[in-house]
């Protein structure tokens, strides 16, 4: 398996999926046109996170941050309040950084590490774009409600795991 494919596979973790789907739901719900700004901010975040990994950043709370960001995005979708796209972009930027930090490449050479990070970034950007595009095309009321139900599931999952992590950290 090539380093790029391993990077793609690294994206398929529940924490990553929750965060990217929540961001996609939020951006799609609030966008009249395809949310290019959020996509660009997500890409920039992934780049910054990868750079931090390359600089040798070690242990970090990226997984917890991803869950918190997923919960925040999901809360925005459930509330369905008008959220300015720059704020959604900022959430995307933060998710991009946390995502890259949470999936450090296990490759030895610089080239294969870059390929792995590229694979992760491509998977994240495509997943975000697909979710946002689908949500943007929801026109019926029941479809809009369905989007909010999925967000409620994401928020509930994030709340539960954040509580578990908090309790585990307290007990350690």
């Amino acid at each position, binding site marked *: 398996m090539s380093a790029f494919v391993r990077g793609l596979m690294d994206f398929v973790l529940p924490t990553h999926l929750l965060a990217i789907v929540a961001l996609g739901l939020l951006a799609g719900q609030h966008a009249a046109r395809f949310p290019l700004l959020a996509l660009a901010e997500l890409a920039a975040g992934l780049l910054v996170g990868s750079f931090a990994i390359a600089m040798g950043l070690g242990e970090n709370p990226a997984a917890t941050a991803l869950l918190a960001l997923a919960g925040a995005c999901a809360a925005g979708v459930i509330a369905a309040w008008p959220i300015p796209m720059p704020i959604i972009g900022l959430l995307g930027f933060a998710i991009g950084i946390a995502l890259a930090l949470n999936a450090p490449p296990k490759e030895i050479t610089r080239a294969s590490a870059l390929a792995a990070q590229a694979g992760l970034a491509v998977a994240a950007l495509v997943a975000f774009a697909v979710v946002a595009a689908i949500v943007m095309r929801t026109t019926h009321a029941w479809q809009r409600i369905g989007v909010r139900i999925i967000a*409620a*599931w*994401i928020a509930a999952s994030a*709340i539960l795991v954040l509580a*578990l992590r908090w309790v585990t950290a307290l007990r350690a």
Partner: protein
Amino acid sequence: MRRLAGALILCVAASPALAHDVEGTGGFLAGLAHPVLGLDHVVAMVAVGLWGAFLGPPAIVLLPIVFPLVMAFGGVLGILGLPLPATEIGIAVSAIVLGLMVLGAARPPIWAAALLVGTFAIFHGYAHGRELPDDANAVAFAAGFVIATGLLHLAGIAFGLLTRWPAGRIAVRTAGAGIALVGVGYLGGML
């Protein structure tokens, strides 16, 4: 051939592991299976959907959004280890009460319905929260059981749509009676 037949008989005769206990197994599929393995959870979740169909809008759309969030709050109580007395009794009572609401086609004010369902959601969430695996699969497990709970609601709502027809109303109300009976069975220790 005789050995094969014997093995097949053993497979058929063996009682399936239907206990509501997947502690420590983690993973999305385990989480997905978790609410489904407890009949008391299943009937209560379906009853929420059925009742939502009787209540109509906005309850029918509000309940599947509010329930997972309140359930998560109950789950946090369970994770924190805070005492919640008579959890299993609360779950059994939820099946009885929600079943009776469906049987009686009750239409209380939306706030009263939300309060009742929310109270029971805490009991269900607490039970799930206590069994959340403390490992790397916690996220997948939590997502799995939240989605399974939501799908049970949606199944209830889908079945509840039969209330548009007179025969369907009878079928749904009969299902409510069955759900209440299952709750009585759990409360009486028969199930």
